[in-house]
């Protein structure tokens, strides 16, 4: 029984386990992460995710793909080529695609349309494995997000499809399904709860959502690699005993829309460093 042809790869990527030994190590990991955070305060440039952001910037500007074009004409919503502040207003409706897109979905769109890459090739390896540098998509997403660092989330709900996407995302957050009857809310609907020793943000509560949503993409110490929101959501569905969710799918965009609206007004600190 296999949910997806490339699951063997993903199994390694996720590499997560609820084995007791791993979880006991979590407490120590959290202490290590705290050490990292202190180092970051002293030297903000020591965050390994910034290497991905730099690589993303180079990829953004490089002429690549069958059309030998850079992504500098890519419209992330604020006009062609405008990267600064774009992430703070995503997901948003794009007329050219007639679809609401989050950052990562839009990057794939631009790679297809501007550079002429084949979608299948772009999505062959969206997530990095543990202890590898970020994939191209991760690097690009980290770069664009970093260009909204210091801003706050200002989601737009002007288009009917943006409002519909938010409504779907909200419903998905509370939708119970799968052999374990889980919804996102099963773990994220109360303050101060944990799985084993891992604290869980109460994403239904704006005060808590504002603290964490803007941290992604983030460098994960336990994985030794950068992780994006698409990957974060895919991981949750994996734990819910559901199949691998499609990259850039409507559900991932809708949930991101929900999270960003919960975090509205909250700071974008990406890329950060997480357990």
């Amino acid at each position: 029984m296999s949910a997806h042809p490339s699951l063997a790869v993903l199994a390694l990527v996720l590499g997560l386990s609820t084995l007791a030994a791993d979880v006991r190590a979590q407490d120590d990991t959290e202490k290590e992460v705290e050490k990292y955070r202190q180092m970051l305060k002293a030297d903000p440039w020591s965050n390994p995710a910034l290497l991905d952001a730099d690589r993303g910037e180079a990829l953004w500007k490089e002429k690549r793909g069958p059309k030998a074009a850079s992504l500098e004409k890519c419209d992330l919503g604020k006009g062609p080529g405008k990267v600064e502040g774009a992430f703070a207003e995503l997901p948003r409706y794009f007329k050219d695609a007639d679809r609401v897109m989050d950052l990562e979905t839009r990057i794939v769109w631009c790679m297809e349309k501007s550079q002429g890459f084949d979608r299948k090739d772009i999505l062959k390896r969206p997530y990095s494995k543990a202890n590898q540098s970020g994939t191209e998509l991760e690097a690009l997403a980290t770069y664009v997000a970093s260009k909204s660092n210091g801003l706050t989330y200002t989601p737009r709900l002007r288009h009917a499809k943006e409002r519909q996407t938010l409504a779907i995302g909200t419903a998905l957050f509370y939708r119970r399904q799968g052999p374990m009857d889980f919804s996102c809310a099963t773990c994220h609907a109360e303050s101060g709860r944990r799985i084993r020793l891992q604290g869980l943000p109460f994403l239904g509560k704006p005060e808590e959502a504002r603290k964490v949503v803007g941290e992604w993409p983030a460098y994960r110490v336990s994985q030794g690699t950068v992780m994006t929101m698409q990957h974060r959501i895919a991981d949750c569905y994996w734990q819910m005993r559901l199949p691998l969710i499609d990259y850039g799918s409507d559900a991932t965009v809708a949930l991101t829309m929900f999270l960003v609206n919960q975090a509205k007004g909250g700071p974008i600190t990406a890329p950060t460093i997480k357990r």
Partner: protein
Amino acid sequence: MRHALLAAALVLTAVGPAHAQKKPAVDPAIVDKALKGSFATAAPDWQARLDQDETQKLCSQYRNAPPRAVAEAMIAREKANIAYPADGKLMGDWKKGEGLAQSGYGWRFTDYPARNANGGNCYACHQLDKKELSFGTLGPSLLEYGKIRKFTEAEVKAVYERIYNPHAAIPCANMPRMGASKFLTVDQIKDLVAYVMSPESPVNK
């Protein structure tokens, strides 16, 4: 006991969030379609996991705070699907239960082909043995659960039912239906009951 649980469950539902009664902002059919379309590359037997049964639908609709009539019907429906051990013995081996309580293995797409038996993953959400410090807090602490309840037969049965299908006592409980979903076998559930309810178990020491 059963009445006390039902009363507690209904009190919980009565103080549920006010938005629970609100008309959904979007047609559930549209939500289902968006979700199904988001697993387009998954195999059909995996896509079927997205389909909701009646209880999942209602608990989603009411955000786990169903009105009284819905809650009562749910209790009756879920109670009916609890299967009991053929020999009538509800307690197995607490040592095996301990292993099951520690293991979160099973049914994730990276768990195929199966390398281990499925685990109950109790510690993800509950405190049990006081020596195990790595416990979650999504569910209540079960420290000395059996001891506090004087190890009575009625309580043993209630624990068996709670693990098999929690909705039979607490409609829209967060806990998975470990028996009803066939995630755990009857024997595994018996071992977990022993871990929680046996006087010899470290949970009750």
